[in-house]
């Protein structure tokens, strides 16, 4: 089995090989480091390799496994994190030139939790500068250059978790940690053909993560399959006294339950009419694959509320507060994307009443989603209306007339709901398309079960890009 074959194995298979001593954690880690070093630059996916600490963690994992002391399904398996998670003594750049040499003297809680689970951190992965908070309109919005999807390097890997998406898709790491304020896990997962899992707000600690928007930011896994993503999410979740938003709830995942229940699925009105044809066809084919387990209702009306303006106002106000020093000092001019150099300024004058109006709207918004989920178990939509965007053009210049319909992603983020996105085929230019499921708060188990069911019946998540 080649290094590449190993990197594309499901986590349970990798874990079995480690416990059976068919492969060592050191060998896996070295393979991952080598691929990150040689292939990573092709996709602008890597910021910092953690070679020394990774090999030390791998040696420790091997010793524990030899001693018959397994820590769990992630023990000895390498992974990467979006470079907005603090790692003690190693630069944490937030993808932005002004923070290129920033070093924290502590680890993010998620990094600590994964280390406790025996996982081996091999790399800090690239991201859109400041998680896209300044209004980028071009893939080239990071000091590491434009993130490129391994399926076609003329196209963007998505943002803002661009490195995690590309690194998982290319088999540089078996899984990675991304973050989402409003779409930053779901979009790169879609554009890179991997599985992304956005957890319920409050399930995973954000301590040590760059704050863009305190009431919207979430951390979640990006992996090959839904089972892998659920295993990682289980290790990341749980209480943390260092993050006030943590509810204290945890997510446990041993695998799908053995039952044959049917899920009630809402397909929002207008979510497929104006998407790219391949996106629509693949979405319908994915639903058809699970037809015996889904009760699908079409044309479900989406709650008529100002989702976009509310998410925009909240991120503007909280983002301007989080980066006030950067904006007022003028250091923002050092950002890579020209739109990012001016995009944050008007947010400095966001009226408090507008921010509070947006925050007040979140209650009726939550009520609207609660009402929706009283009738349905999940909402299903195409993950994105299009395949990825060309890496050398402004976003607004491509795909005119394409629309994804109702604002499901802003709605899900404003109300803190979990979502799972998975590859469901390919579209224009050999690029992946995706299907997304969103459920009520803390319905991660249901989403993971739907995801594993779909991936037991399809093989899109097992496809590999050429040249990896």
């Amino acid at each position: 089995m080649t290094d590449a074959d190993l990197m594309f194995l499901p986590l349970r298979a990798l874990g079995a090989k480690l416990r059976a001593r068919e492969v060592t954690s050191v060998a896996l880690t070295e393979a991952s480091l080598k691929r990150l070093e040689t292939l990573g630059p092709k996709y602008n996916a890597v910021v910092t390799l953690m070679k020394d600490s990774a090999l030390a963690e791998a040696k420790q994992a091997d010793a524990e496994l030899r001693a018959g002391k397994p820590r769990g399904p992630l023990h000895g398996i390498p992974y990467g994190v979006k470079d907005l998670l603090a790692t003690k003594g190693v630069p944490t750049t937030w993808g932005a030139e002004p923070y290129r040499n920033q070093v924290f003297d502590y680890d993010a809680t998620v990094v600590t939790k994964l280390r406790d689970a025996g996982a081996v951190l091999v790399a800090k992965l690239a991201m859109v500068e400041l998680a896209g908070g300044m209004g980028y309109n071009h893939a080239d919005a990071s000091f590491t250059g434009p993130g490129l999807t391994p399926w076609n390097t003329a196209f963007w890997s998505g943002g803002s978790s661009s490195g995690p998406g590309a690194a998982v898709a290319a088999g540089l790491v078996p899984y990675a940690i991304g973050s989402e304020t409003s779409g930053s896990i779901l979009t790169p997962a879609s554009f890179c053909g991997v599985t992304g899992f956005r957890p319920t707000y409050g399930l995973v600690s954000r301590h040590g993560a760059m704050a863009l928007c305190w009431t919207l930011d979430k951390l979640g896994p990006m992996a090959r399959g839904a089972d892998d993503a659920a295993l990682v999410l289980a290790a990341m979740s749980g209480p943390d006294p260092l993050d006030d938003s943590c509810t204290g709830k945890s997510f446990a995942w041993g695998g799908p339950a053995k039952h044959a229940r049917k899920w009630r699925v809402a397909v929002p009105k207008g979510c497929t009419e104006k998407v790219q044809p391949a996106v629509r066809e693949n979405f319908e084919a994915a639903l058809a694959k699970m037809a015996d387990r889904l009760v699908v209702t079409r044309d479900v009306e989406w709650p008529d509320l100002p989702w976009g303006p509310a998410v925009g106002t909240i991120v503007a106000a909280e983002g301007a507060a989080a980066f006030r020093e950067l904006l007022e000092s003028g250091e923002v001019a050092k950002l890579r994307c020209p739109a990012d150099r001016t995009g944050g300024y008007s947010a400095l004058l966001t009226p408090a009443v507008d921010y509070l109006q947006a925050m007040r709207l979140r209650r009726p918004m939550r009520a609207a989603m609660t009402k929706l989920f009283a009738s349905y178990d999940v909402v299903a939509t195409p993950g994105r209306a299009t395949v990825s965007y060309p890496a050398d053009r402004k976003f607004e210049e491509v795909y005119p007339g394409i629309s994804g319909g109702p604002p499901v992603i802003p709605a899900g983020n404003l109300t803190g709901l979990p979502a799972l996105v998975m590859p469901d085929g390919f579209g224009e230019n050999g690029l992946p398309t995706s299907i997304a499921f969103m459920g009520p708060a803390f319905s991660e188990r249901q989403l993971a079960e739907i995801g594993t069911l779909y991936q037991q019946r399809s093989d899109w998540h097992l496809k590999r890009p050429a040249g990896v």
Partner: protein
Amino acid sequence: MTESSRPPGSSRREFLRLAAVAGLAGALTPPAAFAQAATPAPRPTPLPATIPPAPPAAAEGPSEAARALTAILQQRLGKDRLNEEQWEAVAKDFDYDLASAKRMAAVKLVNADEPDYSFFASPAPPAPSGARAKGD
């Protein structure tokens, strides 16, 4: 970026351009600059019947209100902070903000509707376990 009705980079400026074209009658959801965090390009949001029209000047350039707000920012930060083209972009962002605020205000709330966060008078959690050392 958020929704997928528009190309992913859709900024406030793009929102305004589309708003001008569509008279705000279509599906336009503006991710504010900050709101694009993630993935630019929100899907369209159906507009309530009470939605106010787009700022009149959106088609040609920033509105007077947006220019006034830009002037405040110039006074605060110094006009030489940005060039003319950049200030124009900022002014257009203000128009987005104004349109966005009107859309939110069109939703009727009652006096007792509170913001969706809570303040607790309980002891504060421990501070982060380390200080940040900013490079260079």
